[in-house]
């Protein structure tokens, strides 16, 4: 919906005094998903200028990590994107494993995939809930989403000891094996999950209000998406078939049969971003089923000392996080601490195109576009 802005100069020549309404949305606003701020200029209800403001949650995570050993910054990666601590751990472990060259045991690789896909379910299911909340539903889908999330978080807690700040991955494997019966409980959850997804889709996917609110809103072209470094479901919604689980096949993802949903790139609007996530959950369930069927017995962690000194080198490890490509760039200088530690935050980089998508839309559109980008401020501001 693009509305032509009136000619202000002409209006002022006619002696009418007009001005735009400037609103500072955030840092405390119900739908900015944290302490994010958008300086918005409105012409009536139409957004004519939007400027994102970051940094309210900045804690210089990178500097912290450069002042402690490799292992000690593992718990801090949990706090980047606090919804997906497991995948954050994995990305960091992947980068560090490139520096120290350690073999990850088979069982640990399977458990890593299981944890990462469960995390993807957690993220997508709550994101859809929050997104529909931004659309104005009274939190009903969100509560259903949280119910499923709670079940998965219970599994995380049983395995790692904590619900959100799991801190479960280690260089060369995982911290501990899962307790007895955990795999059966996970199988049970995975078997039940499609039924929940059916109900969720029935509630949301054909709702006329959701369709008309989201279709044609926040269009993102394929060219801009690639050039602006958009990754994850948002990129695939713009019509690019690029999933690091397929491209890099890190871990053991090449052993599983799964499909990557993407669009033909004609629209790339909020509805596509919403639907791609719904469809990805089904694929995650498929991966989980295969991984849970094939998981072998065995060791859980390779032979790595807790404090190690890698040779001077550079490593960039990246994974397909639920929000996009999460990368860790490490420079070792031969000491126990990384010389440079850098996080490539998907949430921040996906915000590059926020302004482009919001201009010309209504203020209500700006909220749902932000919701469909899927940001977590812990990761945006680091």
């Amino acid at each position: 919906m693009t509305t032509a802005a009136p000619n202000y100069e002409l209006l002022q020549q006619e002696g009418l005094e007009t001005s735009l309404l400037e609103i500072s949305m955030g840092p405390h606003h119900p739908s900015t998903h944290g302490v994010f701020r958008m300086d918005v200029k409105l012409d009536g209800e139409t957004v004519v200028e939007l400027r994102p403001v970051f940094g309210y949650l900045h804690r210089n995570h990178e500097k912290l990590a450069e002042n402690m050993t490799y292992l000690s910054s593992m718990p801090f990666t949990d706090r980047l994107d606090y919804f997906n601590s497991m995948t954050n751990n994995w990305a960091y472990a992947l980068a560090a494993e490139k520096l120290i060259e350690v073999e990850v045991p088979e069982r640990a690789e399977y458990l890593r995939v299981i944890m990462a896909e469960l995390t993807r379910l957690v993220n997508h299911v709550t994101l859809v809930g929050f997104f529909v909340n931004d659309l104005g539903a009274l939190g009903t889908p969100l509560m259903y989403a949280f119910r499923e999330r709670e079940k998965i978080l219970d599994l995380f807690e049983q395995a790692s000891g904590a619900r959100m700040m799991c801190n479960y991955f280690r260089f060369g494997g995982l911290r501990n094996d899962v307790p007895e019966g955990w795999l059966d409980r996970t199988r049970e959850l995975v078997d039940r999950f499609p039924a929940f997804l059916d109900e969720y889709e029935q509630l949301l996917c054909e709702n006329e209000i959701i369709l008309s609110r989201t279709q044609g809103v926040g269009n993102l072209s394929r060219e801009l998406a690639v050039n602006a470094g958009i990754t994850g479901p948002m990129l695939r919604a713009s019509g690019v078939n690029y999933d690091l689980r397929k491209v890099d096949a890190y871990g053991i993802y090449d052993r599983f049969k799964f499909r990557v949903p993407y669009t033909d790139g004609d629209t790339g609007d909020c509805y596509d971003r919403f639907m791609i996530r719904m469809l990805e959950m089904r694929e995650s369930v498929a991966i989980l089923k295969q991984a849970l069927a094939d998981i072998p017995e065995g060791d859980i962690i390779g032979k790595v000392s807790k404090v190690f000194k890698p040779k001077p080198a550079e490593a960039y490890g990246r994974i397909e996080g639920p929000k996009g490509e999460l990368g860790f760039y490490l420079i070792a200088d031969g000491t126990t601490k990384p010389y440079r530690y850098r996080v490539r935050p998907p949430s921040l980089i996906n915000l590059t195109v926020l302004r482009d998508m919001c201009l010309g839309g209504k203020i209500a559109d700006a909220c749902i576009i932000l919701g469909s980008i899927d940001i977590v401020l812990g990761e945006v501001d680091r």
Partner: protein
Amino acid sequence: MSILGGGIFKGMAVTLRNFVGSYFSKERFITTNEYSWRPESELPQSIGDYPKEEGEQLSDTTTVNHYSRNFPMLLHDTGEPMDTIRCVACQICERECPPQCIYIEKSTEKKENADGKPQFYPAKFDIDVSVCMSCQICVEVCPFDAIVMNSQFELSTPDRFGGLLVRRDDLLKSNDYYHKIHPQEAATRDERMAADKAAKEAKKKAAAEKAKAAAEAKAAAAEAANESKEDTE
């Protein structure tokens, strides 16, 4: 061709199903682990009612008795806590703690530990609750299995400065308690410790035997040399 507003009716059917279903099936509710330390009839009414004693935890009512972690505790073996403390104040955990919440002062003189070996012990061992982030790094780096995670979470206190700094004597918990709250983890840990000890002893034994053998060989060689010397003479 779908009817007008069909999607809305579908959604309303889902909410109606949940509305009715919530009266009949408990599965629809958000389920969380039960953290109840007491039966529901005895819910805490005031601050003093909160269980502080270790024995009051009903470990069988929590589903998270394997790896749940909230705050570190210091382990001691059976016996007087300070006589059997495992910590030797090596300060590795202090160095590795990511938020730097551990404070250790090493004792000046050695004292016998559970194995009867004279060792240093922590004269001071403080952990700050307000800073600790329950990450369990200290547990992993400890070479003596002296620090593990406790799942007790009622650590709130009205005293912001003194109360939040947990002292050594409050941190000390017996290995039996550890077995009670984290049976699986404790069993593997004990197993590994025993294996390590056995390996160490075997190594010691082997070294002793080797030394003995070497000494014998040396003696034999010396004898042989003597003999050959005698021969030459």
